[in-house]
């Protein structure tokens, strides 16, 4: 009897976890290890005729090269800009959610219209914005030309191109954050709002002291998905500029793809080194999030 309950307590959880764990090890842990290892090699991705690995061990040379590589620095700086500006999606999404959180006739329709950009594929979003910015016939270009007399091709200007792509990325991201907050707002306790109202709270004070604290779980998720979304931005850069003009809109994930897998790349080791750096940056945020979740759970 004792051994049976011991089995139930200690073995059963592991049995239930086993399928997930196996997947996680094969598809997450193992590739991470492979990438870490590969980042120490100089390899063009080819095996020789006997099927042997042809890479050359170079130690940390790939990482040393990264620091003197202007394209890497550009990508890193762009990633920081992405991260900072992408977080604007959180307040913007909250604003729209609060605005839409009312009972007017047909509000469901408006909500779904606001949610629409998130449903569209990133590739389509990229294409729409490329045309929007396109020189000579793009709407944005023509508006600028009409106002200032001189059109600006956002995607051909190294100064503006990253901001242009981020604007495209914010469009669906705001919609995503909005839907997170809308569901959060459904769960706001009406009695607390009522009580606050009796105490004379309204407007910003109501939002800041009464509503927002109740939305904390939604805010947390919104920040997490936005930070991760900013760090793995790839589709839009690839579709809208392929990193151009002259590499000024690259981000780390795109640069990694370029070096390792694109037509002019096949420097597997160098690409893996970029991936390792990106992984390191992501780990800072992810461990922060996990630490916070763990703390919340143990406190309660």
């Amino acid at each position, binding site marked *: 009897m004792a051994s049976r309950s011991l089995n139930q307590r200690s073995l059963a959880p592991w049995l239930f976890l086993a399928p997930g764990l196996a997947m996680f090890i094969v598809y997450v842990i193992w590739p991470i290890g492979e990438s870490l290892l590969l980042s120490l090699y100089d390899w063009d991705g080819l095996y020789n*005729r006997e099927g042997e690995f042809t890479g050359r061990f170079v130690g940390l040379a790939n990482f040393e090269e990264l620091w003197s590589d202007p394209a890497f620095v550009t990508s890193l700086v762009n990633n920081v800009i992405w991260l900072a500006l992408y977080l604007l999606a959180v307040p913007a999404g909250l604003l729209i959610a609060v605005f839409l959180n009312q009972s007017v006739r047909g509000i469901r329709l408006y909500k779904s219209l606001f949610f629409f950009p998130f449903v569209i594929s990133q590739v389509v979003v990229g294409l729409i914005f490329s045309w929007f910015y396109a020189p000579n016939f793009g709407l944005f270009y023509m508006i600028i030309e009409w106002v200032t007399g001189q059109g600006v091709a956002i995607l051909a200007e190294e100064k503006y191109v990253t901001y242009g792509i981020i604007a495209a990325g914010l469009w669906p991201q705001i919609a995503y954050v909005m839907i997170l907050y809308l569901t959060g707002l459904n769960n706001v306790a009406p009695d607390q709002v009522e009580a606050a109202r009796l105490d004379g709270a309204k407007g910003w004070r109501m939002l800041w002291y009464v509503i927002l604290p109740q939305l904390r779980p939604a805010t947390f998720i919104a920040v997490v998905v936005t930070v991760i979304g900013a760090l793995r931005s790839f589709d839009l850069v690839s579709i809208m500029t392929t990193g151009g003009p002259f590499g000024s809109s690259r981000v780390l994930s795109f640069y990694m793809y370029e070096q390792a897998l694109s037509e002019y790349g096949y420097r597997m080791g160098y690409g893996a080194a970029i991936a390792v750096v990106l992984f390191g940056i992501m780990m800072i945020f992810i461990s922060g999030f996990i630490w916070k979740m763990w703390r919340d759970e143990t406190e309660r």
Partner: protein
Amino acid sequence: MVRYARGAMALTAALLLSTAAVAQDKRILKYNADYDPIPLAAMEALIADFEAANPDVDVQLNNFDHEGYKTAIRNFLTADAPDLANWYAGNRMAPFVNAGQFMDVTDVWEANGLNEALASAKASMTIDGKQWGVPYTYYQWGIYFNRDAYKAAGLEAPDGGVTWEQFLANCEAFKAAGIDCLTTGSKALWPVAGIFDYLSLRTNGYEWHMDLTAGKVAWTDDSVKKVFAEFAKLQPYVTANHAAIDWQDAAALLVQGKAANYVMGNFAVGTFKEGGMTNDNLGFMVFPEITPGIPRAEEAPTDTIHIPAGAQNVDDAKKFLAFVASADAQTKLNAALGQLPTNKNSTVAADDPFISAGFESLSSAYALAQFFDRDAPAEMAKAGMEGFQEFMVKPENLDAILERLESVRQRVYQ
């Protein structure tokens, strides 16, 4: 269970019988390729001719998507090597040759007199003094122009070519008329490499250009600056915002007469004509001479077929290469492709002015370059093309660009 096993055995036996019936008298030749629909039909016709001439060989063409092929070839050469595979000449094949994945086919060249018949393409098929494949088609680059745009600017169409001074003077006139003298769409980078290659070939010559792409010339050298000095003369007349548009968008500018000239490959003729241009208003000329007396070299990217080192049926694969290289097969294949045969004894359709002009231009050329991204190693090519694009947008950054390219050169060719 027994029943299943018996069923499976019966099925296997039936399969074996049916394939045995075919395999009895035919040797299989596996061919991996990446043809678009029109070239695919042309190649299928060539294969049918080959099978008619060699009734005991069965060519199995396994066609890949064009972009996917570039990744797939890296796997199938090792994992499941076919007997024949498509690829490209010049430095593009170097990684596979150096990894021992392509077979030396020098004997095919010698046995079939290809050293003479394919003389113009031989240099680009040679690494370490041996030939590693056979070219079956190429196409010319040059300047395509819109005669209507020339008329609109009050200029004479440059049929037969102009001098470099005249070309630049025309550009000035186009600028006054509000027409882009030279258009390009450099979003995908490679179109600017065509412009640079020609300026380089015309300023310092073919040997120098080959030294540059082989990493033997420093990018900070004065001879490179000479090329960029000519580039700087052209730079103000190129379509603004070219970095934001694709080459097809720039083709539209040429079609609409908003641009006059376009440095392009012959494959663009189809796009120009779809846009409404005809042989009457679309013209072709070779890139003008810059430094007098330098032998005229041209760009002619070459498509090739190779035998992987792991091929099973090498004898028939070599027969196939010899067949593809023959004058008659190339004449027929390229007529269907709308491109140029690499065999100098082949003939081209006289009724297509661009094909005949290209054949004339290439067969009388002193030497042929492949294209910047095929002559230079991949990493140098990418950095170079980004540098050219940056120069065309911000010519004042020249020194920084050249220093960056030089540091890439020192790493890539070490």
